């Protein structure tokens, strides 16, 4: 079995994020990190390999993004991927979800994976859609927000929570699965793995290398356009108490609740 893990480089959670008013895109300068949700996808791949339910020949980390995104791939390799593929091309800049999903599907197609794993959402874009977009392009079955996954007889048995509770779904391979963060506890990479990550093969590919049609990606190939950026409606800030003396804090809470007739 060959598993591709889609990963993304995102601004570090501690960094104040902003939208560049000129380009109307997320300002991606500053500290960056591997999308924490994607680490669960890599861990799921490692557990299939180590659990022995299927013979995993290769785990390949795949990303799309500017030069710096290679760092997310190094982290993915440190966590267990065997090699990585970096789709990087100026022509991709400004791609919306539709264009990004198409481009990722093309680079995945060139790898012919049996299973594509990714995190259920990116830490920056707060969108849950890319797995299902990619799956439709690849003509593979797909399920998102999976929290339990077993491989048996070349099929996946998945559990996920939808509108009416927990569904159990059986899926034939090849398939695209986005995983929720409850699926596993990602391991920490060993120092040796971190040091060795840059020595593992990393292929950098341009759009032409994987057959991406130029007019379907980038800002000009996107089907949505950001027209304006507005501040949210003003909301009065709440009162914040730092708990130093707990008895005093509790008194304050009780008084606050009592004032509003909530006790």
């Amino acid at each position, binding site marked *: 079995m060959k598993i591709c893990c889609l990963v993304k480089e995102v601004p570090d959670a501690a960094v104040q994020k902003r939208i560049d008013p000129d380009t109307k895109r997320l300002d991606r300068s500053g500290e960056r990190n591997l999308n924490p949700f994607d680490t669960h996808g890599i861990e799921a791949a490692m557990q299939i390999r180590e659990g022995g339910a299927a013979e995993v020949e290769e785990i390949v980390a795949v990303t799309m993004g500017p030069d710096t995104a290679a760092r997310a791939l190094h982290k993915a390799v440190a966590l267990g991927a065997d090699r990585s593929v970096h789709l990087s091309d100026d022509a991709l800049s400004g791609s919306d979800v539709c264009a990004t999903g198409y481009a990722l599907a093309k680079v995945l197609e060139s790898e012919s994976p049996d299973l594509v794993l990714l995190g259920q959402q990116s830490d920056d874009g707060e969108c849950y859609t890319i797995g299902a977009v990619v799956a439709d392009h690849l003509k593979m079955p797909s399920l998102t927000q999976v929290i339990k996954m077993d491989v048996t007889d070349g099929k996946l048995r998945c559990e996920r929570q939808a509108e009416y509770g927990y569904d159990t779904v059986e899926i034939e391979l090849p398939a695209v699965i986005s995983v929720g963060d*409850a699926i596993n506890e990602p391991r920490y990479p060993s120092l040796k793995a971190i040091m060795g990550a840059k020595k593992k093969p990393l292929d950098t590919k341009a759009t032409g290398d994987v057959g991406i049609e130029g007019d379907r990606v980038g800002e000009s190939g996107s089907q949505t356009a950001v027209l304006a950026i507005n501040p949210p409606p003003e909301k009065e800030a709440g009162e914040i108490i730092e708990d130093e003396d707990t008895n005093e804090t509790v008194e304050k809470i009780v008084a606050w609740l009592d004032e509003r007739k909530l006790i």
Partner: protein
Amino acid sequence: MAGILTYALHDGEGNFNQNSLGAVSEAAKLVGDIGGEAAALVVGDVDDAQAASLGAHGAAKVYRAKGVEEGLAQPIVDAMAKVISENDISYALFGGGLLGFEIGAGLTARLGAGVTMEVTAVKADGDKLVAERPVLQDSAIVDVGYVSEPGVIIGRLNAFDANDGGGGDAEVVDIEVELSDFSTKAKMVTRGESGDEGGVDIADADVLVGSGRGFGGEENLSVARDLASALGGEVAATRAIVDAGWIPYATQIGQTGKTVAPKLYLAAGVSGAIQHKVGMQNSENIVAINKDQNAPIFEYCDLGIVGDLHKIMPKLTEAIKAKKGG
């Protein structure tokens, strides 16, 4: 091209999801501005009366694909893509929820359509739609327009209100859908059931103690139960601790759980990410206890306490009991 197609999710027996009904009503309102018809698609076991009842919420026409199973996205993408293409429909609109996200994403790929997700409002600009989407933990709202049609709009939970405008029955049109090969390769073994049996209905409680991963373990939830009981309320949960198996699904707030608006929502050890926020933000009073001062919940609570819930909550429970007793 003209008109809007929505998808009306149901429980398998034709009882429609509230967020889907919201999308139907929103579509009816929007076609008043951009023209065309508000239509809905239903799949599976929905009888004539149930399908026609979507007319009361604003649907002029209901496409019913009886041969397509409810609950998995890809066969429904096949159905919606067919209806949109054959009827030259301009937009697909989804209420908040998991399945809408999956179907909307699939349609994006299938139709080469632009998509906007987590949409909180939709407005008309001439005969086009513009979607409003909060970004960066709701610190900005972007207006997203569509370069081409069709366009896909996926709402945030509770973004659209269902009306019972007293419209008459919708016209029901049965359709046959040829499924894509890959759409048949995922099979529902068991579909979730709402899981309310024997439990309390948190949606009716006046006071809820929202509990999250900050409790550290199932064994510590008694602290939340004690406080809830002192306040005369119930314990509610984040998805994280439901997925972890600490507490039943029936208590879950948010994206794929319940929407609540109690008089008091006291959140402890809850970071307050968007998926949780959308399920409880209309609570009258929100109190948050969290040791992480950067937790998003401090951005929208009325009273926030930065501190250790394990230290604060037992004392708070005692103080409230004393207050009530005295």
